């Protein structure tokens, strides 16, 4: 079995983004997706702190402390990029103008429920940021997440155990083992990595899986 690396997961998610899509990338793994957009394909990246047309991280010497992304890392804008205030940034999210939110997750349930904001760890104060706005508002929500936790517990579940970010919002999940669609008929496997069959994958998944008739091998270049 050849699980994808995190970079390969980001690459795989990037391939599905059509030209002209307005995309918000969550903090962490999803942020890496912008590195793997096929060249020549114009995608407009939205940042909750008031940017459309966000570009790559700045080159050394070109950093501007007033230009940051949602994760508070330094960023840039591309030609055509614009600035606006927080209220307009979230009007775009809540009003369904952002076509796609690619988010991280703790858990996704077979009905599309998403849990990605708190594990209720008593040692840390909770924080939600823009997670609920994105999950409830973006026209489509896709998730990037390792298929299981480090100790092997499944993250694709029948019901989420952690508090929900939004119910019924996730349409597609990219894991290190598979590409899964959340459909009214359940969780459908679109792609699996080499060396896995449905039985092996089901063992690592709490949600009931169905194999798409036209399923494919999940493959990514070395990155």
């Amino acid at each position, binding site marked *: 079995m050849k699980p994808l690396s995190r970079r390969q997961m980001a690459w795989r998610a990037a391939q599905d983004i059509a*030209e*002209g899509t*307005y995309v918000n990338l969550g903090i962490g793994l999803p942020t890496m997706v912008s590195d793997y957009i096929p060249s020549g394909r*114009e995608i*407009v990246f*939205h940042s909750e702190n008031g940017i*459309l*047309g966000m570009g790559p991280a700045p080159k050394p010497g070109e950093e501007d402390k007033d230009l940051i992304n949602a994760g508070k890392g330094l960023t840039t*804008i591309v*030609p*055509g*990029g*614009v*600035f*606006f205030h927080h209220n*307009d940034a979230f*009007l*775009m999210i*809540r*009003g*369904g*103008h*952002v076509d796609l939110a690619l988010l991280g997750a703790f858990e996704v349930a077979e009905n599309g429920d998403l849990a990605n904001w708190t594990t209720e760890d008593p040692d840390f104060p909770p924080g939600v940021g823009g997670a609920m706005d994105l999950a409830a*508002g973006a026209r489509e929500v896709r998730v990037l997440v390792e298929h299981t936790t480090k100790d092997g517990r499944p993250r694709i579940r029948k019901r989420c155990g952690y508090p929900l970010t939004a119910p019924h919002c996730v349409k597609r999940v990219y894991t290190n083992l598979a590409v899964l669609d959340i459909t009214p008929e359940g969780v459908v496997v679109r792609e699996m990595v080499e060396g896995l069959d449905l039985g092996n994958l089901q063992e690592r998944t709490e949600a009931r899986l169905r194999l798409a008739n036209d399923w494919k091998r999940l493959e990514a270049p070395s990155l």
Partner: protein
Amino acid sequence: MINKVVDNLAEAVAGVTDGATVLCSGFGAVGEPVELLNALLETGARDLVCVSNNAGTGDEGLAGLIAAGRVRKIICSFPRTTDPHCFEAAYKAGKIELEIVPQGTLSERMRAGAAGVGGFYVKTAVGTKLAHGKEMREIDGELYVLEKPIKGDLALCRADRADRWGNLTYRKSARNFNPVMAMAATLTAVQVREVVRLGTLDPECVVTPGIFVDRVVVV
């Protein structure tokens, strides 16, 4: 390459269907996308619900649509502005339905439609006949009326400059309803004076980001 600039007015309004709700920008004739409205007339679309501050000036644009009997209903704050004879004739003949909405509430209802707000409470119109039949609510000892969002199937707007991503700037008071209407429709078409190269518009000064715009046509 993203390119929202279309070749002509017909392309800009293509696909509108009978019965559509059309947000028609402008304050009187200023900021009114006259040529786009004329193009809408040429599509033959009928039974339209038009949302606009006024109800047409002179014979062109929104006035022309009304004169041709294409507008089933108009939602506006003030139908009689400079030279409203097309609307007045249709109204007196009982050929057009009129819904009067206070101007700020009209604007805010469209913003709600744009912003994913399902309803909101304002004090405007409380205690007046324009609140009749609307749900009231007391909040912190004051009465408010519940207002519902307005979403357009199509918005027709007018701006000064655009780029191929649909970023827009306006000119003076011709800005008026354009930014809020551009946000509040499924399909937004904008007529502009000039299309400039991507990256030319100052990113601090773009008023309508291209995310709200679908088609741009130079007039």
